[in-house]
């Protein structure tokens, strides 16, 4: 009841000095607002990168040729290519976790057709490929199992190639020449955008692996085997299982090291997430400094206020206020001001984040956690920076305070 009355007294004092209150709160408002906007930008970037990684293919495992060791000297990654089509088939037949598997061969060459020609990379893949990469088509269709088996002369163009060779028309049904081999365009891939490291994923064309091996390329090494699991939770087990199958397929003895490498997207996304997390923390840390400065502002004004109100404190003490009553009153004043300032700062943060999003097109995400932390932090600032002035007020001698002019 008494505390309630003291809160009321503090509230009145805050309302009575509107200008002083506003100036005091300004620091906290800007501080909290800045923290929320900065974290929103950081989180936004993080979720955008997360989305891009998802775009690379969900639940995907990538097997690449490993380092070979010749007489104890490592030849580095991909130095000895032993990936085979049979590896992929063995995985398809034996694995319990793998939903789809596709060996991939690359050939970099000129594609001629439509408007002119375009240099790009043609991937020889299997019918599982769109499933593994989670890649849809915007028009046409993917090749089917019989086209794969027979090595039909068909090609599916990535969005970048389609735009450059056929800017005004649907390329499906058109013919393109690759190394003088005519291929029929049967589909166009959906746009996937850039990878986090800036590669254009859409500057690519897909063809049945046999077509690429037999007709387009004389370089028949399998560059990678892509596989995907039924569920993202299986990634770790699938990786272990895949390793066992690969070792068996390659007939490796107990003492021999792996001649291949298996990587998953989780590792990639973790690395990217770590980077953006560091960025978010950095932004939050910079913004926190302004919150700290805001707190010092509160202490400043409260100290001035104690001096200015020395006579008031003297009266209150003379008519029976204990030191603790005065302490409580001043502490409540600074806490109420900082919490109010924090709340206004949260509103400002929300507004600023969405304004920034609409002006720059950045992705911004304000999460509840940040808001709660910001408000708690501003209350803590109020207590911490309000305590010294309140203590000073409470320890005044009523006789001196009354005589103070």
């Amino acid at each position: 009841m008494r505390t309630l009355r003291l809160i009321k007294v503090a509230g009145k004092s805050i309302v009575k000095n509107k200008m002083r209150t506003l100036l005091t709160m300004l620091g906290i408002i800007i501080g909290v607002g800045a923290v929320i906007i900065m974290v929103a930008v950081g989180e936004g970037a993080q979720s955008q990168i997360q989305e891009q990684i998802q775009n690379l293919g969900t639940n995907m495992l990538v097997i690449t040729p490993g380092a070979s060791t010749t007489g104890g000297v490592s030849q580095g990654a991909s130095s000895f290519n032993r990936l085979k089509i049979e590896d992929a088939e063995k995985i398809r037949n034996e694995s319990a976790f793998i939903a789809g598997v596709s060996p991939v061969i690359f050939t970099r060459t000129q594609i001629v057709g439509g408007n002119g020609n375009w240099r790009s990379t043609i991937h020889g893949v299997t019918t599982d490929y769109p499933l593994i990469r989670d890649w849809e088509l915007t028009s046409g269709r993917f090749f089917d199992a019989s086209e794969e088996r027979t090595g039909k002369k068909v090609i599916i163009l990535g969005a970048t190639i389609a735009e450059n060779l056929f800017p005004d028309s649907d390329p499906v049904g058109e013919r393109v020449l690759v190394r003088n081999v005519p291929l029929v365009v049967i589909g166009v891939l959906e746009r996937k955008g850039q990878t986090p490291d800036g590669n254009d994923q859409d500057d690519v064309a897909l063809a049945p692996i046999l077509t690429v091996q037999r007709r387009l390329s004389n370089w028949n090494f399998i560059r990678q085997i892509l596989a995907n699991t039924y569920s993202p939770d299986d990634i770790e087990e699938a990786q272990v299982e895949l390793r066992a199958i690969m070792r068996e397929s390659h007939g490796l003895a107990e003492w021999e090291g792996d001649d291949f490498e298996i990587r998953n997207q989780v590792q990639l996304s973790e690395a990217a997430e770590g980077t953006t997390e560091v960025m978010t923390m950095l932004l939050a840390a910079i913004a926190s400094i302004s919150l700290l400065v805001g707190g010092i502002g509160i202490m400043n004004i409260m100290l001035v206020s104690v001096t200015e109100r020395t006579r008031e404190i003297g009266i209150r003490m003379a008519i029976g206020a204990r030191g603790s009553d005065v302490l409580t009153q001043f502490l409540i004043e600074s806490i109420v001001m900082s919490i109010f300032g924090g709340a206004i700062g949260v509103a400002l943060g929300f507004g600023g984040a969405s304004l920034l999003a609409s002006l720059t097109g950045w992705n911004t995400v304000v999460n509840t956690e940040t808001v709660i932390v910001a408000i708690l932090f501003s209350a803590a600032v109020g207590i911490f920076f309000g305590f010294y002035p309140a203590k000073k007020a409470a320890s005044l001698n009523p006789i001196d305070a009354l005589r103070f002019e």
Partner: protein
Amino acid sequence: MSETPPVILVSGVRKTYIMGKTKVHALQGLDLTIRQGELVAIMGHSGSGKSTLMNIIGGLDYPTEGSYFLDGIEVNKLGKNELADIRNQKIGFVFQGFNLLARTSAAENTELPLLYDRTNRIKNHRKAAIKALEKVGLGDRVDHFPNELSGGQQQRVAIARALVTEPSIVLADEPTGNLDSRTTAEVMQLFQELNEQGITIIIVTHEGDVVRYAKRVIELRDGRIIRDEFQEPDSAADNLAKLIAEQEGEILEEKTADSL
């Protein structure tokens, strides 16, 4: 007089301040008894020790030596918090220069001591404040702010604030310090009325104008009582009527002078 119980019992009180290397003896062994229902003026020049005495009687300061009983409680043995409670419940302060909180209504100013009353004996703060304001004749100014009130009215709000906790004594420090003679008479009339209702009032002052309204005059010099006598007080009401008549006469004269 001697049949009423003593409210204030000061015996052998000394107060010594240490200022740098010199010791200042503000009070040098002071004995004083004030009984219920008295209207006492304590006077003396600056440096006579009257402020020090007021601070000790008011529970704002401790004596260096001697004892002080207020309403049978040995105040000089109390801790800081108990002393604050004594000030709250047993003493009504009226300060020089009103000392009202700005931008705070008369009623809220009057309520202020109840905020710190830990006994909670008065439940409805606003009702008690209005009652106290009515007692000082400001029942129609309850929600006015100090800057909307005259000097005399502000001092009456301060007196209402002193009365709201129904204290044992009202302790006024130069209550007419900044007031003209007419307003001084107004305030003193109020003190005399309150005293007639049985409230013990102690006024610390250096103005002779105030002293003549008191029933008892105590004069201090160099930390000692040099005069302590009872007197027949002037009636502040009569003096006020006289002052008003004079002022109106002056105004009347001015008016007739203007019209000639």
